[in-house]
């Protein structure tokens, strides 16, 4: 168990290396081998994440399974897991196999594509588990590179330019992030995130960053966070990417981006920069709501499924974000569970997208309609996934909704009202999405004759929905482990903001 976190982090990278070194050619056999190796590696990673979940002791305070090793150049490789990162790691480890399923129709240079996907998973897990600012920054910003390679090289016409735009959006954020983290490290004389969170600095001096500096540091993180979630006005890369990139690449970028953005908020902003967060709270909340409204409006009028899913992903990120911004234990729990639920929902919807696209050779809504009459089973799965967006009971979305609303009351009653309005907006978008795909009359010949789901698609959508149902009926599976960390974080935030230095 000593190296459990490193094993979890590096299994995908090892598989990528095996592919890079041993697999040659791009014929059918090579493609099949690459895909099955990806399934095995991501499945094994998820299995290790489950072992980690089982071995995690929720009663224990602080980080567990900590590994700390000195590296050359004065660097320290330190990883550890607490309730917050455990929940998000499980979400990422669960999402990646579904992204592999959504990639099954990739038919060119499959090996390279899988290498990029697996490398991205390692970087994302590394960012969630790192307890050292240097490694955190490397993993966090590095994750985007393989994802953009996937998006740019395997997408349709103009995908390269779309991927480059994402890079251009992210670049200033990365620079600002590094400057901010360097300032924090310099100011506190440590890169140990655990020490920074507990305000237990080795220097023994100032235990917190000064209030004014906290605001500036938070602003330094803001660009990177806003691109990842994404938030207006740094979101415009997403629709372009979604229209051209392979579905799995968009799924990974949009699905894990919000996870990483939320993690930045919960790991860096809330515990290390509480005064700054309090200063910027009205703006952050206002921006989150505005972004939500923007995305929901845009999603409502999309004429293609890819565009609608892209904006839906952006709108869906607002719920866990607003919940986290409430700063309450319930809100933080809702944010973690919400990030996981969002990732699973998007995974299911993107698998549905690949399924429909493959059969109708189009993602335009006008090419669909009436699918429920042809494929009722698929339609029910699709409906359940769409309705998950507004808190379908029996899925994880409802505990998220309930916790977010109840948690928001602890911050401000109007935040709860705003959350409810946001969920209602999501309801309109999700119902519209489902209506355009599945309802209506069965008029088009393509839809009349379209084939049903194959076993892989059924399994992928079923697994996504099954996981959502499991977490909806027994949310304690996750909340029991995230709860103590969320409560401790909420307590420290309340203490810091109620008794300023």
């Amino acid at each position, binding site marked *: 168990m000593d*190296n459990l976190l*490193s094993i979890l982090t*590096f299994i995908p990278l*090892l598989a990528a*290396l095996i592919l890079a*070194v041993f697999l040659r050619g791009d014929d059918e056999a090579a493609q099949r081998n690459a895909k099955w190796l990806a399934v095995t590696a991501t499945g094994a990673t998820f299995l290790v994440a489950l072992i980690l979940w089982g071995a995690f002791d929720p009663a224990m305070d602080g980080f567990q399974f900590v590994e700390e*090793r*000195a590296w050359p150049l004065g660097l320290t*490789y330190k990883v550890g897991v607490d309730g917050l990162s455990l929940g998000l790691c499980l979400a990422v480890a669960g999402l990646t196999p579904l992204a592999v399923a959504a990639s099954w129709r990739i038919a060119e240079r499959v090996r390279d594509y899988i290498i990029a996907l697996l490398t991205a998973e390692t970087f994302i897990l590394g960012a969630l588990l790192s307890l050292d600012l240097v490694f955190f920054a490397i993993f966090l910003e590095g994750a985007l590179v393989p994802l953009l390679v996937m998006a740019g090289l395997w997408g349709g016409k103009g995908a*390269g*330019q779309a991927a*480059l*735009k994402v890079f251009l*959006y992210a670049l200033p954020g990365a620079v600002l992030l590094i400057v901010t983290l360097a300032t924090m490290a310099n100011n506190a004389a440590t890169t140990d995130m655990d020490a920074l969170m507990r305000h237990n600095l080795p220097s023994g001096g100032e235990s917190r960053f000064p209030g004014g500096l906290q605001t500036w540091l938070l602003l330094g993180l803001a660009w990177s966070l806003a691109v990842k979630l994404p938030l207006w006005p740094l*979101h*415009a890369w997403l*629709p372009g990417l979604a229209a051209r990139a392979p579905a799995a690449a968009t799924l990974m970028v949009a699905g894990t981006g919000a996870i990483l953005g939320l993690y930045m908020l919960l790991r860096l902003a809330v515990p290390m920069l509480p005064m700054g967060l309090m200063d910027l709270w009205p703006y952050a909340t206002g921006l989150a709501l505005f972004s939500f409204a923007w995305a929901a*409006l*845009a*999603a*409502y*009028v999309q004429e293609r499924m890819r*565009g609608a899913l892209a904006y839906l992903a952006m709108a869906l990120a607002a719920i866990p974000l607003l919940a986290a911004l409430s700063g*309450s*234990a*319930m809100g933080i*729990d*809702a944010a973690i569970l919400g990030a996981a639920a969002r990732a699973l929902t998007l995974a299911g919807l993107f698998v549905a997208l690949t399924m429909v696209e493959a059969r109708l050779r189009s993602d335009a809504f006008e090419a669909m309609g009436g699918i*429920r009459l042809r494929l*009722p089973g698929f339609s*029910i799965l699709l*409906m359940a996934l769409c*309705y998950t967006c*507004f*808190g*379908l*009971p*029996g899925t994880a979305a*409802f*505990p998220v909704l*309930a916790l977010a*609303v*109840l948690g*928001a009351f*602890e911050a401000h*009653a109007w935040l709860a009202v705003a959350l409810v309005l946001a969920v*209602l907006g999501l309801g*309109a978008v999700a*119902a*519209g999405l489902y*209506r355009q795909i*599945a*309802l*209506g009359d069965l008029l088009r010949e393509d839809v009349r004759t379209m084939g049903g789901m194959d076993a892989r698609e059924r399994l992928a959508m079923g697994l996504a929905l099954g996981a959502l149902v499991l977490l909806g009926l027994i949310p*304690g599976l996750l*909340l*029991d482990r995230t*709860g103590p960390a*969320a409560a401790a974080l*909420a307590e420290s935030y309340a203490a810091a903001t109620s008794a300023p230095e």
Partner: protein
Amino acid sequence: MELTIFLALLVAALVSSPFGRGLGEQTATFAATALGALAALLAWVVCIGTLGDDAGPRSVFIAPWIESGTLASEIAFEVDGVSSLSVAIALTIAVFAQLYGATLSTPKTLRRVGDCRAMRLVSSTALLASAAFVVIFASGTLLFGAGLIAFTVASALILDFNVRSAGAGRAAARGLLVCLTGALLSLLAAGTLFAAGDAVSFEVLTSLAGDMPARPVTLALGLAGLAFTAPVPFLPWALKASEAPGALAALLSTCAGLVAVTVFLRAQPFLEPDPVVLEGLIAVTAILMPLASLAQQSARARLAAAAFAPVALAVFSALNGNAGAALILLAGHGVALLLMGAALDHVANHAGEAGAGAEHRGAQAAALGGAISATGFGVPVLLGPLALVLPGYLGQAGALASAEAFYWPLVGALVLHALALWAIYLDAFHGRGKKKRDDADTDAEPILSRVTSGGLLALLIAFGVVLGTITGLPGSGPLPGAPLLAGVAGFLLALLFHRVPGARGAAPLRPVFEGPIFLPEIFRMGLETALRSLGRLVSDRLDKSLLEAVFDPLSARLLPGLDRLSGQFNASRAAPWVLGAAVAAALLVTLVTLAGG
């Protein structure tokens, strides 16, 4: 026992869904209906046991649910006389809707070619019944909110999968949003109550009711209840969506009524003392909807519009704390609507034209039974004193007894309701045109449907006898026997309406009901247009300009350079070495890390 009922409903929904097709259509339909019947039977066992037990409400713990911070919510049911009776009524109506779904409501041609319509209908009714079960039995605010959302989704599912008209589908989507608003408002109320009392259990919250903030909770729960009642002027979607097959429309109307009644009963301890605005809105609905019914073009639409009045009356009773009257009224309403709806479906499927239904005696008898019961108008010659204990009479008398300031408006509503229902009956079975449609199915009613109708009529009388015995014959306010008199007046008006040339179709009323009452529809259309315009502005203009103004030129300049660099790198002899070195370095780092530095 409660868990068994719930699981039986869920299994029934699953078995008859597309996922249960492996069993075969007939087997799946039969198995699901049998499970639904078992659930209904058990619900009556629970109901009779609870009513006979003086021990008060009983809590049935199922499992812990959402625990976070100071919140500890569980999946548990609170079973008392009112809730167990509500569930029994909902499940009974669901079973009969399933039976009708396989018989009168479905054209024989479709049954013959295996359209799976019956299977879909059985599945969605079971799902709706299970959602209603959760709402009614929920012991805490969160489970209650979950039940309301589930009920909303199940209602939309019923319409999506059982109604082929695109209009009904769109109406279902709008209804989803209206009811979702109601469900979310109940969650807001739950949040307000949690913030004030740090609890989500109704039992604990009720004991703290005096300390609760009345105004926001009244507002949230009042609106939540109204969303499921669909009062004037917020009901155009419900009117359209209710044009589902008769059995389903009956089930939807009854269950929505039961859910709305439950919302108001649960909300009662926290409501402001005299919610006059809510009562007024409901009374207006009870008066206007029978009139709107007269102005509708099709029999289904007319029945759908008329169905709002009893639901409004039941909700009115619940608002006044008269749960018994509300439930009796809804029981009678559900059965009557089933009988009339299924009979009209049969006429539409088999005959086609108004009046041709007279040749289908079974359907005619069913419709007659429904109209008699629903209007509180017993036919003394046929039924004698039994007429007085029919649920329609009992429920309406109970509602009037607690009407106070709204007494006479509600009596007027009863007259209009009777007029609307008798007008539907007379048009369908005593009209002038008897020409059959060429494609009409001329077969007689299936035996099962006659058995179902007979069973329903027997049930109707049993409901009345049992409930009348339990509650006693309620008084009906200043006018003795008011429901009976209102029924007679409505019947006579309907005869007049039917006989006077030019009155049928209520042409003069049409502009009224297509105009002012449906103003919200215009508001909705305006809102939708505004949202679409804003959405287009956001997505097609602003987002695109942002990209085009800044990032497109930048990436257009950078991309060729990157492509060139990448091409040069790929062509260079060093490329394999650089890539190999990168891979080796990554491998080394991994191994060093795993080996412990």
